[in-house]
Each structure stands twice: as structure tokens, then as C-alpha cells.
């Protein structure tokens, strides 16, 4: 190997060396060289009789310099050690995102900063590609959703209309038995309609297409009318429906219409599955976890431990015969879970067979700085623009 190659190799290998090694060599050269030079000058001066500096002072100065070098070395070394550790951790973590071959290629050489910058570029590239894929999937999803919506609702519209025309005797009289049979057909058509609505709604939420309208509001003031409207249904089944609101619950940031949806879903489930006793709606300000817990507790027949995990799944029904009679779609809890997740909350169920069930969800208490404050109006979210009241 000629001199030039050797020199290049040395430079290349030095450049590629671990930053700790590079730092040590450079630091020692930069700090010890001047000290040696200084001592040489002093020694020369004293030999020629030019003692400009007191030997004792000179010794102290040298000692302080050595100390300075030592402290500087230790602190810089530990800082760089941290960078080396970050690089090592990063290399480990990359195994989860990139292929083993790519990771091996990235970890070539020993220069940790070069390795880190290489891996940042690789990960950024990966993320960009994944984003592109997701975006195009969302576009497809949106079109598919529109297509499904149109294709399912149109024939259903004809079916409903045909049944209704005959049932309402618009095309001739019918007897009671015929009316009853058509009534069942209408019920099922309505159920199908609700199912399509729920599927499309869930599909939109999951594809993150549904905009949440977070506003600062009083949770109890929003919940009370909902509870009141469900009270009538509960009482008609001989059940009580009461509230136990924690006065310490602060103002929260949430999407009023969606939380009303969740509450309605939990209440109607509770009423459906409770034969005696009743339902209590509770709120609790859980300061320790910086959130508010809302619970819908019933004295129904309870749910077995093995059935509990299935509840929030799509189309899961514990008692299918009963559920069908009451016209449920099997998607209410899945939708509720999506809504609560979008609120950065948790939703879960606790139950004991023969005792009852409690559905709980949390809403985080966020700092109220720049969020919008709701001017509470019972009609604000369901404005019927362009329609007469």
C-alpha cells in the first residue's frame, strides 16, 4: 500500500471511528500539547537564567491546568457516552420498524453520529411511504363508503315504500292479519336502515373521517335532559332511573352530541337488560387520575366473565333472540368505544352475574386555555337549516 493510500485509509478509519475514541484522541492532543509546550518554555527560561515566573506559582498553574483538563475530559466523555448509548438503543429499536438487512446496513462503521443520522433518514423515508399508503387507503375507503351507502339504501327505500303503501291501504284495503305481517316487514326494514347508518358511522369514525367538535361544557347539564328522556322508557318498564352526580366535577372539553350518543347507548342497553330494580347514572371527579368517571350501573342479570371481552366488538350480542326483538344493531358499544377513544378516555365494563352491570367511561380533565366555550342551547347542534320547525 503506498503512502497516499495509507494516509487516506487512516483518515477514513479515523472518520469512521467511534466518537468516544475520536474525542479522546483529539482532546488529549489539544490539551496536553500546550501544557508540554508551556513546560518546555519554562524549562528553557530557567536554564538560561530568565526566571520570569515563580516556580511555585508555575507548579500551581500546571496543577490547575491538569485538573481543568481532567474535569473537562470527564464531563465531555460522559456526554458523548450518552450519545453513544442513544445510538445503541436506537439500533435496537429499529429492529421493530426496519428489515434486519436494512438495520445491518445502517449500523456499518463505528461512528455513532453517522449511524444515528443514517437511521433517522431511513425511518423518515419509511414513514413517508406509510403515510402515502394510508392516505390512498382513506380515499378508497371514502369512495367505498359512499358506494355502499348508496347501493344499500336505494333498494331498501323501494322495499320500505312498497310495504308502506300496502300497509297504509293506499292501494286497497287489507285485513288485520295482513297488516300485522306487513308491520313485521316494516320493523325489519327499519332495523336494516339503522344498521346501515351504524355501519357507515362506525366506518367513518374508524377512518378518522368524523370531526369531533370539542367544546368546554358542563357535563351534568348535558347529561340531565338525556336521563330525563330515558326515565319515561325506564318507568314504563317498572324500573327506576336516578342520578348520583359528583358536585366536584369540573368543566370538561368534549363533543356534546357524541357523548350524548354514548350515554343514550349505555342507558338503552341498561334498560333493555334490566328486568327489575333500576339504573343509576353516576359521575365522579377522580382527581388522582385527572379525569371524570361516568358510570351507568344497572341491577340487571349481569354478564359472565367470559362474555365481557366480547362486548365492545362489532355485532356481538350476548342474547341474540332478545336483542333482535328490541331492534339493536350490535354496533352501539363499538361506536361508543370509538367516540370515547377519540376523547382520549377509556371505556370498560364491570359485571357480576345475578347482581348487575356497570358500564364506565372516563373523560380527561384538560387545561382550559384556548378551547371554545359552549353557549348552551338545546337547538345548537341540531339546527334544521332550511326546514320549518
Amino acid at each position, binding site marked *: 500500500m503506498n503512502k497516499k493510500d495509507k494516509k487516506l485509509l487512516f483518515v477514513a478509519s479515523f472518520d469512521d471511528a467511534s466518537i468516544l475514541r475520536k474525542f479522546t484522541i483529539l482532546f488529549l492532543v489539544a490539551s496536553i500539547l500546550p501544557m508540554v509546550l508551556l513546560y518546555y518554555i519554562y524549562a528553557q527560561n530557567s536554564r538560561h537564567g530568565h526566571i520570569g515566573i515563580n516556580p511555585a506559582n508555575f507548579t500551581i498553574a500546571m496543577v490547575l491546568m491538569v485538573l481543568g483538563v481532567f474535569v473537562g475530559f470527564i464531563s465531555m466523555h460522559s456526554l458523548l457516552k450518552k450519545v453513544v448509548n442513544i445510538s445503541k438503543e436506537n439500533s435496537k429499536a429499529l429492529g421493530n420498524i426496519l428489515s434486519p438487512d436494512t438495520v445491518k446496513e445502517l449500523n456499518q462503521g463505528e461512528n455513532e453520529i453517522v449511524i444515528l443520522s443514517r437511521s433517522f433518514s431511513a425511518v423518515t423515508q419509511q414513514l413517508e411511504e406509510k403515510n402515502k399508503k394510508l392516505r390512498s387507503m382513506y380515499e378508497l375507503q371514502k369512495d367505498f363508503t359512499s358506494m355502499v351507502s348508496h347501493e344499500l339504501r*336505494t333498494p331498501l*327505500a*323501494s322495499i320500505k*315504500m*312498497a310495504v308502506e303503501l300496502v300497509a297504509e291501504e293506499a292501494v286497497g284495503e287489507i285485513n288485520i292479519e295482513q297488516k300485522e305481517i306487513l308491520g313485521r316487514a316494516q320493523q325489519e*326494514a327499519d332495523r336494516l336502515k339503522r344498521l346501515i347508518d351504524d355501519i357507515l358511522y362506525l366506518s367513518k369514525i374508524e377512518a378518522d373521517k368524523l370531526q369531533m367538535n370539542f367544546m368546554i361544557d358542563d357535563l351534568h347539564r348535558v347529561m340531565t335532559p338525556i336521563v330525563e328522556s330515558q326515565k319515561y322508557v325506564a318507568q314504563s318498564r317498572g324500573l327506576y332511573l336516578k342520578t348520583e352526580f359528583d358536585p366536584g366535577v369540573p368543566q370538561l372539553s368534549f363533543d356534546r352530541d357524541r357523548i350524548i350518543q354514548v350515554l343514550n347507548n349505555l342507558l338503552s342497553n341498561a334498560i333493555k337488560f334490566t328486568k327489575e330494580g333500576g339504573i343509576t347514572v353516576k359521575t365522579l371527579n377522580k382527581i388522582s387520575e385527572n379525569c371524570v368517571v361516568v358510570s351507568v350501573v344497572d341491577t340487571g342479570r349481569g354478564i359472565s366473565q367470559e362474555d365481557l371481552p366480547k362486548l365492545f366488538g362489532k355485532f356481538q350480542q350476548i342474547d341474540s333472540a332478545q336483542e333482535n326483538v328490541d331492534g339493536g344493531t350490535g354496533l352501539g358499544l363499538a361506536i361508543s368505544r370509538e367516540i370515547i377513544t377519540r376523547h382520549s378516555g377509556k371505556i370498560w365494563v364491570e359485571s357480576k352475574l345475578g347482581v348487575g352491570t356497570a358500564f364506565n367511561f372516563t373523560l380527561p380533565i384538560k387545561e382550559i386555555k384556548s378551547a371554545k366555550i359552549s353557549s348552551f342551547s338545546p337547538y345548537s347542534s*341540531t*339546527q334544521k*337549516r*332550511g326546514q320549518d320547525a
Partner: protein
Amino acid sequence: MAKIWLVEDDQNLANLTKVALAKKGYQVMVFYESLQVLAEAKKQKPDLILMDVMLPGQSGPETVTALRNDPNFRNIPVIFLTALLSTEESALGMTIDKVNYKTLGKPYDIKRLLEVVETSLIKK
């Protein structure tokens, strides 16, 4: 007897809707696509238009925009029929050229259909 134009490309739904309206005494003319409506618009005008949103060729909203160019059609009430929105969404209506139109989401009840038609005709 009010004249209603029904623009709906699904033949079954168009015929059933026509029966529902005719039984209540309305004169209903059915069109299956935009071009037919625009051609007829040159000869006469209705008291109300029920317009499907998704049509072959020009969409419902596009057809309405074209019709509004004719001064005779500027004040005729239009109700959109759509399978693209849920009941909740259709309650908010559709806005075209800063004008908000009533929307009937499919599937619709006969009762609801008749209610909306009646209200729109009275307003006129």
C-alpha cells in the same frame, strides 16, 4: 292539484314514490336523468321538484344549478333525495351556491315525504 317533477334514476323507487304522491292527489311527472328534465323545462314548469342527488350524467345539484339559470325556475322549491347521508346528516340540508335546500334521506317514510312536500308547497 300541484304538479310535481320527480327526478330519480331508480325505476322501482321512482314508480313507488309516484304512487305515494298520486294517491294524495298530486300530478307527478317522472324523469330518469338530467337531460330529460332540462328538455322539459323549456316547455313547462312544475310547482315542486323532487331531485335525486346521484343521477347518471349530470348530478342532481348540477341540474338544479342549470335550471336556476332560467328565471322561470328561480323560485320553484327543490327537495333533494339522497342515499348518501344518514337521517341525522340529511336533517341539515344541502347547500348549493349559498342556498340551503331541504334534503330527504333515503329510505324515507311516505308520511315524511308528504309532510315535506306539503310544507314546501305552502311556503311557495
